[in-house]
């Protein structure tokens, strides 16, 4: 029984992780994880992503924990860049042309807690736009690895 459980847990780990790293890297992205099938459409294509990001940018600025970081930010420009980035990552016909994530956050002190707060704000936006939970996680899985470049402070 114990050997079976050990073997099962190991196989589970290998199987479950298989789809996550057996993807063909997309040259344009620094985070080469293939999007889940149908994600771009589920987010309402580019127009849907733009509405989501308009809402997200507003909420970011209003957030008590991290709003300060966006005090001087041009929200329309932020929403536009995020739209291109998310559209591309989700498998849509867009090309993100903005700065890379390290550069984009070089002038901010972003802690892991800030990063988590941002994820929560994005979850709020997705909830407000009735994005199903499974689709939310598929999008977050594309964005979460950015913590390596975004988080730059303790």
């Amino acid at each position, binding site marked *: 029984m114990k050997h079976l459980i*050990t073997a099962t847990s190991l196989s589970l*780990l290998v199987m479950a992780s298989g789809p996550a790293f057996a993807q063909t890297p997309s040259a344009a992205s620094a985070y080469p994880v293939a999007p889940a099938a149908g994600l771009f459409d589920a987010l309402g294509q580019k127009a849907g992503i733009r509405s989501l990001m308009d809402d997200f940018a507003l909420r970011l600025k209003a957030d008590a924990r991290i709003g300060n970081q966006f005090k001087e930010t041009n929200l329309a420009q932020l929403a536009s860049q995020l739209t291109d980035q998310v559209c591309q990552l989700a498998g849509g016909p867009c090309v993100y042309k903005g700065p890379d994530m390290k550069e984009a956050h070089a002038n901010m002190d972003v802690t892991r807690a800030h990063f988590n707060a941002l994820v929560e704000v994005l979850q709020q936006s997705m909830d407000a736009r009735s994005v199903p939970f499974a689709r939310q996680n598929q999008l977050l899985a594309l964005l979460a690895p950015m913590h390596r470049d975004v988080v730059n402070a303790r």
Partner: protein
Amino acid sequence: MPHATHCSPSPLKRALAVITLSAATLALNSAHADTGKLLLTGGVSTVEGAAGGGLSPWAVIGGPGAAGETGVAAYVSRAVTRDYGLTAAGAAIGLNDRVELSFGHQDFNTRATGTALGLPGLHLKQDVLGAKWRLAGDAVVDSDTWMPQIAVGVQHKRLRSSGLDGTLSALGADRSGTDVYLSATKLFLAQGVLVNGTLRATRANQGGLLGHGATLGGTDDGYELMPELSVAWLLRKDLAVGFEYRGMPNKLQRAGAAAGLGNGLRADDWMDLFVAWTPSKNLSLTAAWVNLGRIVPATTGGRQQTGLYTSVQFAF
């Protein structure tokens, strides 16, 4: 429950002291946990105090604190099986999402077994001091790799003196012992599935409630490596369901046979099916159906100890 539960005041006092101390630490720490971890990603409190599932510790650091923050998680849990009752309470402090220190107290009501041993009302009380160190990885955000979060932990368990001391001594079981474990936790974010595997080196009988090792009828006193597995499906960001399995050593069986009890002290592996709900960052509620296998089948008709487990955790 025919008997009221007695949770002796001293462990609660101790837990309170831990919490007070932690609150003081929090107050001193400018970067306190008002932002913190994402919901459910710190796990809940195990019956032994470490963060994880209900039965098995995970590689996550307890409390709501993210890197650079301090967090505390305090819990009270209750399991009622067909022949026994267990109350557990304690707290864990997570420091910088790197180190976890925990204290857990368990009060095990032996009910009919105590009576059969001529010790009616016997409660076995155990204290568990734990420490966990995150070695590598991040269970949540490294969603483009297979790399899990990995932690090593230690649990020192001490059974308080009770009417069972003479019996344990006759069986050759020690009243204290130390478990060491290695855990790997991975959230497969796109799939919404969390998997934890733990390997525990232990000599504990029924988690330490019946001591550690045995020597009667031939020494069975060494460490054994026990696998533990938890799988959780995230249904919403505040709701998860899953199952756990925890392998248990069976060191008392031979001693029991030598004492003329046949298989009367046999132990089985533990498992559960759980649902965990986190309505806020400060509160988690867990309910589970547990099967702890046979526990002293000599006095319980060989029954499987199935029952209900409930736990409430406060985090700040």
